[in-house]
């Protein structure tokens, strides 16, 4: 799983496949905009979610932001380490700072999301 193989949403989330499950997190741009993250509220495991549904909240010293399901599916697991160490998402947003993983997804929904070059172009409009 590298930045090049991930898909991206306009809300600055990423999704990528790892061992048959789909990991979701926020991008480096998102964490830099939020500033120091103080708390991350993650969805319940086994919850069925629709693409675009608000399923998590990130709180930083500046703001609280909703996190949306990038595609539809089931929440198969969450990153429990974030409860005690939300700064992992600041330090390593594409790695140790992942939020949750999904299964039972329709992979064709990924096609609607941006690839890395499209996301880089999109970032230029988000100064």
């Amino acid at each position, binding site marked *: 799983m590298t930045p090049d193989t991930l898909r991206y949403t306009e809300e600055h989330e990423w999704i990528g496949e790892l061992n048959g499950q789909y990991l979701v997190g926020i991008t480096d741009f998102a964490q830099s*905009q939020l500033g*120091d993250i*103080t*708390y991350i509220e993650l969805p319940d495991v086994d919850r069925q979610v629709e693409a675009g549904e608000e399923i998590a909240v990130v*709180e930083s*010293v*500046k*703001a609280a932001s909703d996190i949306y399901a990038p595609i539809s599916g089931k929440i198969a697991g969450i990153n429990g380490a974030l409860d005690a160490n*939300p700064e992992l998402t600041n330090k390593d947003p594409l790695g140790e700072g992942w939020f949750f993983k999904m299964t039972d997804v329709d992979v064709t929904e990924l096609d609607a999301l941006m690839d890395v070059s499209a996301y880089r172009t999109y970032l230029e409009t988000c100064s």
Partner: protein
Amino acid sequence: MQLIYEKSQPGRRALTLDALDVPTCSLPADLCRAQDARLPEMAEIDIVRHFTHLSQRNVGIDDTFYPLGSCTMKYNPKITEVAANEPGMAQLHPHFSSSPVFESECQGAYALIHELERQLAEVAGMKAASLQPIAGAHGELTGTLLMAAYHRDHGNTHKDTILIPDSAHGTNPASAVMAGFKVVEVPSDKDGTIHLETFEAMLTDKVAGIMLTCPNTHGLFETDVAKISELAHAKDALLYYDGANLNAIVGQCRPGDLGFDVMHYNLHKTFATPHGMGGPGCGPVGVGERLLPYLPGPRVVKKDDSFTLATPEKSIGRMAAFFGNFLIAVRAYAYMRHYGDAGMKEISRNAVLNANYIYARLKDTYQSAFPGNYMHECIFTALPQAEKGVHATDIAKSLLDRGFHAPTIYFPLTVKECLMIEPTETESKETLDAFCDAMLAIAEAAESDPDSLHAAPRSTPVGRLDEVKAARDLNCACL
């Protein structure tokens, strides 16, 4: 400064109890603490000094300019304290209003409640008002419950959604959800106001109401409000006015005349009652014709030459014990009577003038978030300063060293590196100039010596606090 526990000396006492002259008895063991409570042991004079020193470290509107945007930190004229401390007001027991036996003792208080509700209704173009809600957000909840009652009564069971612009006051979505509605956010256009075509597309049959703050939290008047009202009412959706920014228009135009059906007033933001941090507050609701039957009860009503209590047949019921925070209402009444119609007009005019004076002095140095036309507050983004490594928070902290309370920062969320400045109407040109000079000096330091701002504040009792640690590692301690 030491905590009170650090000053404690074993065995020291503030008072001496008389010798025990009654038999002792033991409490049941399961009701007793395993260990004695940890209480500070101090002499009375040291306790007095401790809390006096703490109080001297407070910052408030009576000390300094306090331009906290969106919050309208109005000066509270001392005449309102005189009114609230009148023995007939201050010593009236709330339970007198619980029994008809004491109705004669309550006549003065009832007259004041009746008259203040009438004044509030008149100043906002509403049919009636209720003083029951005990805070602004409680007023929002009351207002949204009134909207729910209207739709229930009219069989509008499909109406389950409230539209709220992203420039609305921050508590609106929570209030609407508590009243059982779903919330859909309406995006602003780049000018900072509602984009009419977008709004129209979102206004489906499911929409029960729209909650607007006007001027909105971008400090801008929603110029399409008449059209929004027309579109909403065509769908039997109700229009809610959040009174957070009423100070900008009070005496100039009235929400009722703009088409609003229901609203709340923040007495502390417009009618100069003491400000928040736990209250006590008062967030009256006002209603137009449509919502009149559902007002909270009981209400003070006039019967012949005296006042009594009655509950409207379709009332949503009580929203607070007694009549909310009555002595806050007394302050607002004194304020309104003191200033009168002409005074109200001058208040809003000066509030807008002061904000625009600051805008004019700072706009070439700080980047305005929107193309101007500000009402009672002006909004800048510190993005140009952020490129030099100086963020909104550094500017805010640096203002503390220069003797001013900081403006609101990082709100509204729609503006990056936001600095939201609301001077209110009472400030002199000298004060506004001193503040603007400080802002300009900070901008200059951001260019020449950005590191000096990162260390601010230096002159406060404690320096830069670790906000991240405070949020991540919450650990409360007593002073």
